[in-house]
C-alpha cells in the first residue's frame, strides 16, 4: 500500500515535525500539547475512513454518523448500566462492528459492482438515516458523561496541561502498529494488502475478495467504535456530533495520500499543531480553518505538481 521511497519521505517529515515541535514548545507550550492531542484525534478518526477507501475504494459518507452511533452506544451503557466509558471501549467496538457489518451486508455490498458514485450515494443515504434515527430516539438535546479523569492534568516544566487526550495518540499508535502487524504477518492481512493493490489480481490468485471487503468494513467501523468510547468523556453527545469528522477524515486521507496510513498520523499531527498555533494567537481563532485548509490545498497541489498524485 505504500509506494517505495516514501519511507524516506516519512522520516524527513517526522524529523521536520519534531524540530518544529521543539520550536513551538519554547514559544507557546500548550499549543504543542493541544495540537498533538487534537491532531491524534483527527488522525485516529481518519484511519478507518482511509482503510475503507483504500481497500474497498468506497468513500464512506456515513463515517461521522457511525462515530455518533458509537458515542450514543457508550452513553447509553453509561446511563443505563453505569459502565465507565473506557471500560465500554471493547463492547462498543463490538457493537459497532456488528452494526457496520449489518449495514454493509444490507447495502454497500450490493453496490460494490455498481461503481463509486452509487456507493457515494448509498453512504449518503445511510448517513441521513442514522443521524435522523438518533434524532428521533434521543432528540437534539446534547448529553454528556461525567468522569473525574477526563479533565485530569499535570505539570511539566512549569506548564499545566490536561493529559486525558493523549489517549488519542496512544490509540492512533496502537491502531497503526496493529494494522502493520495485521497486514504483514497474518494471512488475512496479506490478502487484504493484495486486494488493496489489485482486487482483480487478488481474485485470480484465489483470495476471497468478498470476505476481505466484509472484514475490512467491519474492522474499520469497530475502530470507529473504539475511538468513540474514548471520546465520550470529553465531548457532547448529540446527533450531529460525528458529522464534521467525515470531512476532516477525508481531508487527512487526501493530504497523506491514498494508501499511506502512517502519513495520516503525521498529517493529523501537523494539522492539529498548526490549528493550535493559529488558535493561540489572539484574534487568530477565526482564521484557523482558512490556514488549515490552505495548507491542505498547498500540500495536495505541491504533490500533484511534483507528479506524484
Amino acid at each position, binding site marked *: 500500500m505504500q509506494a517505495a521511497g516514501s519511507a524516506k519521505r516519512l522520516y524527513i517529515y517526522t524529523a521536520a515535525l519534531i524540530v518544529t515541535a521543539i520550536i513551538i514548545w519554547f514559544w507557546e507550550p500548550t499549543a504543542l500539547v493541544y495540537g498533538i492531542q487534537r491532531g491524534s484525534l483527527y488522525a485516529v478518526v481518519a484511519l478507518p475512513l482511509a482503510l475503507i*477507501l483504500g481497500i474497498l475504494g468506497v*468513500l464512506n459518507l456515513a463515517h461521522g454518523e457511525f462515530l455518533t452511533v458509537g458515542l450514543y452506544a457508550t452513553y447509553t451503557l453509561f446511563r443505563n448500566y453505569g459502565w465507565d466509558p473506557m471500560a465500554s471501549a471493547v463492547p462498543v467496538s463490538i457493537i459497532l462492528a456488528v452494526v457496520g457489518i449489518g449495514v454493509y451486508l444490507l*447495502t454497500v455490498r*450490493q*453496490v460494490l459492482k*455498481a*461503481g463509486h*458514485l*452509487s456507493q*457515494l*450515494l*448509498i453512504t*449518503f*443515504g*445511510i*448517513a*441521513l*438515516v442514522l443521524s*435522523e*434515527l438518533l434524532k*428521533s430516539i434521543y432528540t437534539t438535546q446534547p448529553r454528556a458523561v461525567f468522569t473525574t479523569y477526563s479533565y485530569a492534568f499535570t505539570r511539566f516544566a512549569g506548564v499545566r496541561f490536561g493529559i486525558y487526550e493523549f489517549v488519542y495518540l496512544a490509540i492512533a499508535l496502537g491502531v497503526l502498529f496493529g494494522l502493520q502487524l495485521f497486514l504483514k504477518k497474518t494471512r488475512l492481512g496479506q490478502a487484504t494488502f493484495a486486494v488493496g493493490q489489485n482486487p482483480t489480481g487478488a481474485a485470480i490468485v484465489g483470495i476471497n475478495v468478498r470476505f476481505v471487503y466484509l472484514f475490512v468494513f467491519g474492522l474499520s467501523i469497530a475502530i470507529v467504535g473504539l475511538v468513540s468510547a474514548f471520546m465520550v468523556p470529553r465531548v457532547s453527545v448529540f446527533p450531529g456530533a460525528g458529522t464534521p469528522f467525515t*470531512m476532516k477524515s*477525508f*481531508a487527512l*486521507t*487526501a493530504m497523506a495520500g*491514498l494508501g499511506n496510513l502512517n502519513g495520516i498520523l503525521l498529517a493529523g499531527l501537523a494539522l492539529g499543531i498548526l490549528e493550535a498555533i493559529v488558535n493561540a494567537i489572539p484574534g487568530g481563532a*477565526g*482564521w484557523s*480553518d*482558512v490556514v488549515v*485548509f*490552505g495548507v*491542505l*490545498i498547498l500540500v*495536495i*497541489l505541491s*504533490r*500533484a*505538481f511534483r507528479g506524484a*498524485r
Partner: protein
Amino acid sequence: MGKKAMIIVCILVAASLPLYAGPYFLSVFNTIFVYMSLSLTWDMMLRTGQLSYGTAGLFGLGAYSSALLVAKAGVHPLLSIVLGGLFAGVVAFLLGFAVLRLRKIYFSITTLALTSVFAVVIRNLPRLTGGASGMVLPSALFSGDAAKNYWMVFALALGVIGISLWLSRSKTHYAINAIRNDEIAARSSGVDVFKYLLFMFVLTSSIQGVIGAFYAQQYAFVQPEATFSMNFLLLPLAMALVGGVYSTSGPVVGAVVLGVVSEYLKLIMPYGHLVVYGLIIVLVVLFMPRGLTRFVARQLARRGRVGGADRAALGN
C-alpha cells in the same frame, strides 16, 4: 416523436404554472429549479470525470458578489445576477490553473476545502461583507412576486438544461467522454485535456454563481452559514445520482422527484420524514443503481414501447 411532444407539453405546463398554481406550489418548484440547475452543473463537471465538491462554494461566491454589488454599489438586481455569475467564473478560471491538475479524491477534497475557505474569508471581513451576521438587501427581487421569481428561475433552469443538452450533442462531448474514460488515451489522441477541463470548470462555476446570485436576490439576504450551506452540494449531488448521471434527464428527473417527495413526506410525516427520505435514497440505489431515468427507460424498452434510437437518447 412521442417523446419530443411529451417534453414540449411538460415545458408548456411548467411555464404556465403561475396561471393556475398558488404561491406555495410556485415556491416549491422554484426551489426545485434552483437545485435542478445546480445538479445539472455538477453532472456536467462529472462528465469530464471530475467529481467536484465545490458547488456550494461557487454558489456562495455568486450570491455574495451579487449582494455586495446591489447593497454597496447600487447595481440593478438583475444585472447583479449576471455579474455574480461572471465573478464566479473568473474565480474558477484563476483557480482552475492550480486545481485542475488534480484528479479523483484530491480534486474533490480541494474543491470542498475551497468552499470552506471562501466562507471563512467572507466571514472574517465584516466591514465588507457583514461578517458572520451577514447582510440584508434593500429589497427582494421583483418585490417577492411569486410568479415573476418563478418565471425567472424557470428560464434559468431551461437555459441550463439547454447548455447541458448542447454539451451532450456538440463535438465537445466526444472530447469530454474520452477524457472521462481514459485520460491518457485522450491526451495521446491529441485532446487538450486541460483546455476542456478549464472550459467545463468555468462554465459550471459561472452557472452556479448565477444561481447563487438569484437565490440571494430572491430572499434578499446573505449570511455565511446559510449561503455556503452544504445542502447546496449534497442535495444536487443526490438528485443527479438518483436521477441518473452523465445525462440531462437524470438531474432534471432527480430534482423533481426528490424535491416533490421531500416536501410531500414532510407534510404527511412531520416528525421523522428525513429517515424515510434517507431510506428512499438507499432503496433507489439498491434497486435502480444506474438511476431512475435509465431504470424507467429499461422497463419501457422491455415492454417494447420505446424504439432503439429513443432508448439510446434516454440513456445518453
